[in-house]
């Protein structure tokens, strides 16, 4: 279970996260909220790029806040960014391999694992292409393959479907749903695409102005009046 307890973040005078708590225990969970709600900040806290002023983030007894970002990756935390972070001058294969370069396993085993995951995401035929030659969707698939290698424990996607067509978004959703079955990793998704969240996530946390306004089964959360109000506003009386 990924336990986020009383996490607060301030940027100067701005409270980006205000005492946010949530225990994610489902295979695939979502975080939604309007722009500026603090979704990416929460992901940055979990992955180590933002240090909270208070609170804790633990998984299976491991206090993640005590680890540096690259040690969190070694521990098994994976994340993708809003823009696909694929090195243009590395091949697809190398872009994935870099994620497990730190591992002490034999080189042959690493290569086999990379090949397996590229096959799984449908990029095996493009393994020798350099990043600069890929389409946006191919870059995203490569990013997903990066998240799958090296026995991940928690995989986080920050708006993975941003800029994609409906069909690409559907394919990506199907792929994300399979991650837990393939790797046993817990998946956390941030996205504005409520349909993707509804389709993929079992439970969802909703943030607004840095505060938790709802958390629970996705279907229930999306029907919550407070959530609807946060997304489409309330009528002034």
């Amino acid at each position, binding site marked *: 279970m990924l336990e986020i307890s009383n996490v607060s973040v301030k940027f100067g005078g701005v409270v980006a996260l205000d005492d946010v708590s949530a225990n994610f225990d489902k295979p695939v969970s979502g975080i939604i909220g309007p722009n500026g709600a603090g979704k990416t900040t929460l992901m940055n806290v979990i*992955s*180590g*790029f933002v240090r909270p002023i208070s609170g804790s983030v633990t998984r299976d007894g491991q206090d993640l806040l005590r680890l*540096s*970002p*690259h040690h969190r*990756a*070694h521990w098994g935390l*994976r*994340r993708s*960014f809003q823009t696909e*972070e*694929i*090195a*243009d*001058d*590395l*091949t697809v*294969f*190398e872009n994935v*391999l*870099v*994620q*497990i*370069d*730190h591992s002490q396993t034999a080189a042959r085993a690493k*290569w086999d694992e*990379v090949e397996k995951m590229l096959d799984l995401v449908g990029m095996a035929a493009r*393994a*020798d292409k350099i990043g600069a030659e890929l389409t946006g969707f191919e870059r995203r698939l490569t990013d997903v393959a*990066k998240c799958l290698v*090296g026995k991940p424990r928690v995989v986080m996607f920050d708006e993975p479907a941003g800029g994609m067509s409906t069909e690409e978004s559907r394919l990506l959703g199907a792929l994300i749903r399979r991650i837990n079955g393939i790797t046993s990793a817990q998946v956390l998704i941030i996205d504005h695409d409520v349909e993707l969240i509804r389709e993929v996530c079992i439970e969802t946390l909703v943030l607004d102005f840095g505060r938790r306004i709802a958390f629970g089964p996705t279907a229930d959360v999306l029907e919550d009046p407070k959530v609807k109000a946060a997304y489409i506003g309330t009528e002034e009386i």
Partner: protein
Amino acid sequence: MKSLIHVTPSGWTGLILAAIGILVLPSLLGHFWLSVFTSAACFTLAIAGVAFMYARLGLVSLTQVGLMGVGGWIALRLNHALDLPFELNAAIAAGCAMLLSWLLALPALRMRGLYLALVTLMAAGGLEIIFGTFKFPNGGDGFWGVAPGSGELMRRPWIAESPEAYLRYVIACALLGFLFIEIHRRLQPGRAWAMIRRSEAAAMAAGANVTLYKTWAFGIAGLLAGAAGALLAGSLGVLDGGTFRASESIMIFALAIVGGAQCWQGAVIAAILYKVLPALLNLWGVDADLSYAIFGAGLLHAVITAPQGVAGQLVAATQRLYAARKGESARA
């Protein structure tokens, strides 16, 4: 995945060029040009280091010529103090320059872009003052080893005592330097550097220790600079502080951009511009300072129209020519 050991077309070009440089070039040159080309080969190694850091990590180091001076100073000091082989002197000099570049890198890596460039430039300025004050060893007594007058010359490797053989030796060392960079590029550090250049956050998320890999890159650049300094000491026999001014570090960085930092050819072009062009201008009776105007024009050209430098343009033109010929032969 391609095997680690494979030679690209660019690699073949480099190997052929090095073979020509080793087998043919020295026998075509007189004493003056042997000296010029040997200096150019030494600076090729140093420029390769600074270009590599810029191309792989986007880091601007303006201490490279200062680190060459450190390598040269240590090689000369060891040469006059101990009876070690040239190779061992050069290896120790390169290692010490690498250690110094690590020391410089650790505080400097907290900064980026212009600030990092300024810090490394200040370090180069400090080294310039030290070289100017204490001079380079020439067989004198004491720690600094400076004797009045011309002093003794540095011994060359026993296999390369003549100017012709020494040019061959330096070209072979430069080739080894390029191979050293290429091996790194193809292995774990190269992949981590590519990710860091893309985004430090993404590199950390991929498990790369950004500080370690940046320091590693600084170390390689320092190692190459130190080796280049030792080789230059072997070429000239004695060194002078005027060779290692901070402004020269700026110059070789600018020329690395003009030549093209992304590929090995860029370092060769930059070194030729830096050492061979002024000598040619002198030969033609033209003031060698004209080369600065040419460098400036080249830099403007690179910044405005050729971000990959002259080498990038040459490589692209070759690829276009190859593609056109392939198309013609397919039609035939």
